[in-house]
């Protein structure tokens, strides 16, 4: 990380400022983690070449393309932030299913092949070849029963959405660019609410 040494110094100074009393040897030194505030992020494009250059642990390269298409339709890029592919969610999904049990693996295999079959029946193309609008139409259909999934493609939707959400919102893009998360840093004081309108009447 670029500014690591500067951050290490600033954390030590912060710790000294907070200590007040005679030297604190707590026996645990502070770990350097991320710089305060937003990270210096490498620009990660949603690049098809990048996806095809990923060496999968479990799925085939073709299946990675399919997973990338679906997860990026679930959490797409918008005006505000990049989407699942830029956050390399397909890599996360591959790693997670690779260590999943047999039932989970079977669901993913059957789910992907079922989606391909549905796409070929409709549009004479495999899922990965369909334009985004067609992929989304298929996802709308299989997500209709999201709260009570029954068919294999419905259960598969729930599974891939779950892992897409987990992977995206645990990525640097999801945490910092999309949600603009301000925490996991250090404050000398925690100021609390100062909005009179939030407080009980006797507290304004």
């Amino acid at each position, binding site marked *: 990380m670029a500014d690591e040494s500067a951050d290490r110094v600033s954390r030590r100074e912060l710790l000294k400022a907070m200590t007040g009393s005679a030297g604190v040897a707590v026996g645990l030194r502070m770990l350097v983690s991320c710089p305060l505030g937003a990270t210096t992020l490498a620009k990660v494009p949603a690049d098809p070449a990048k996806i095809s250059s990923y060496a999968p642990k479990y799925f085939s390269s073709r299946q990675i393309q399919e997973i990338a298409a679906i997860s990026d339709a*679930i959490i*797409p890029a918008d005006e505000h932030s990049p989407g699942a592919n830029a956050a390399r969610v397909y890599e996360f999904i591959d790693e997670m299913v690779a260590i999943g049990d047999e039932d989970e693996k079977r669901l993913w295999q059957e789910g992907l092949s079922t989606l391909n079959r549905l796409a070929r029946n409709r549009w004479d193309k495999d899922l990965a070849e369909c334009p985004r609008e067609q992929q989304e139409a298929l996802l709308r259909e299989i997500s209709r029963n999201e709260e009570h999934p029954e068919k294999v493609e419905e259960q598969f939707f729930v599974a891939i959405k779950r892992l897409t959400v987990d992977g995206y919102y645990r990525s640097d893009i999801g945490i910092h660019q999309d*949600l603009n998360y*301000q925490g996991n840093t250090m404050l000398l004081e*925690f100021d609390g609410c100062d909005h009179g309108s*939030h*407080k009980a009447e006797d507290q304004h």
Partner: protein
Amino acid sequence: MPITTYDVCVIGSGPAGGILSKELAEAGAKVVLVEAGRTMTPQDFHYHTWPYELPYRGMREGGQPAAAYPKELTQALRYEDSDPIGVDRMWAVGGRSIHWNAVCLRFAARDFRERSLAGIEEDWPLSYEELAPCYSYVEKMIGVTGSEENLDILPDGEFLPPLKLRCSEEIIKRACTKMGLRLIPTRKALLTQPYDDRPPCHYCGHCMRGCDVGAIFSVPVSMLPKAQKTGNFTLVSGKLAREILVDQEGKARAVLVIDTGTRKEEEIRARFFAICCGAIETPRLLLNSRSPRFPNGLANSSGLVGCYLTGNVSSTLLAYLEELVGTPPVNNDGALDHALIPRFNHQDGKKRDYVGGFDYQLNYAGFMFPYQAQKLKGFGKEFKQEVRFLQPGFVHFAPWGKVLARRENRVTVDPNQRDAFGIPIPVVRFRFCENDRALLRDSLETGREILHLAKARLIIDPGPEPLGLGSHETGTTRMGSDPRQSVVNSFCQTHDVKNLFVVSGSCFTTYPEKNPTHTIMALAVRTARYLAAEARKRNL
């Protein structure tokens, strides 16, 4: 190592054993503290690590030191005929104090008198008035943040300045006030100013990953250095207690330990012993310490070692407040939960079909991950934008309630199933009863009412199932004055073996809705004073 007979051998280095050891060492006793785990180093923790810096984006580990949860321990347990619960055991110097959330609540006077006041369970052989000086001593020793509130149901302590409420907590408080309920700053063994030679909290929101600056009380940071300074203290780590050996007179004479690395066995001898291993491992050790004099396990003439396992019934409501959604993100992390709604169901006049109380703890779930993303329907841009829109309005609202102490909920051991060291494993049998479930349902109903009044735009409801025991397992070597109905007396001394003590949540006669550790620490102080006096009487 030269053969030594220590004055006191303490087994288990969590808050109970850590405080007990330090107090006894300071009183002049030669103390050995035996711990199965090792000392954790900063490299074992992930204090501030971002999920994307971890394998599987952090999905395969709980954020707590994996080294403290080796499979030799975690796999050495079986549940039988149980509701889905998990019990929390670990091996590390400092025990769970190295990554706890540090909530410290004094029990109320009525919490010691369930039988007299509510006609249920049993009274403790100990009153609040007797324990209050020990609560004070602990608070002054370790530093506890809180505010003076004058509530009988939650006695005040000696506090450092209170945590400040977040916007979401002020809004909930506003709703509570309309309903005649109190919401107060919570109480934690967390420093809001420098104290005990430790720096104050830096509000990084990762308390339960371990506190890298020592602002949260932990045994390794706050107790062991003081114990070491006395010259009377020896820490023996990496050694698992297998059984306690007794002499011809039926007194404890040694603990047989196994080095978890070399598998070498040795005896550690002492004049007094204190088992401080939590509510699962403590009865396990006693039940595995059989002898001709104690065929059913050590200190078990009552047959009650392992019985009366309790904990807290808890759940989680996730809500998104109308006044906060869509606002610019702020750093809300703080010290996890800043707010507490103490028990109120004993005095609001409503009729209920259950006994016992519950409180609510707000915002200890953390603010990084958008939980609503796993619950909102749909996908695509609108889904993503809704997730982002809701996130600033997030409030986590968790009821914590009393579980009745019932004899049939228990820990036994199975000699036919042994761990990696040949020690019979604990078998846990636990079922919630209808009272526990009715209490939880009521807490969720009132919780939803509060959140509606606070203008929650969305409430994610987990359903009525209890989420396990909340890591607050207690009750399995219960305290009482009748040796036929209890295992230890009010000084945590076993009835059967006068030089054997048990200091742990396992001693709780009954267990209310409040977190257990403050009372465990107070009992450790009380026991230390009694044990020191006993030891002096015998001219040590």
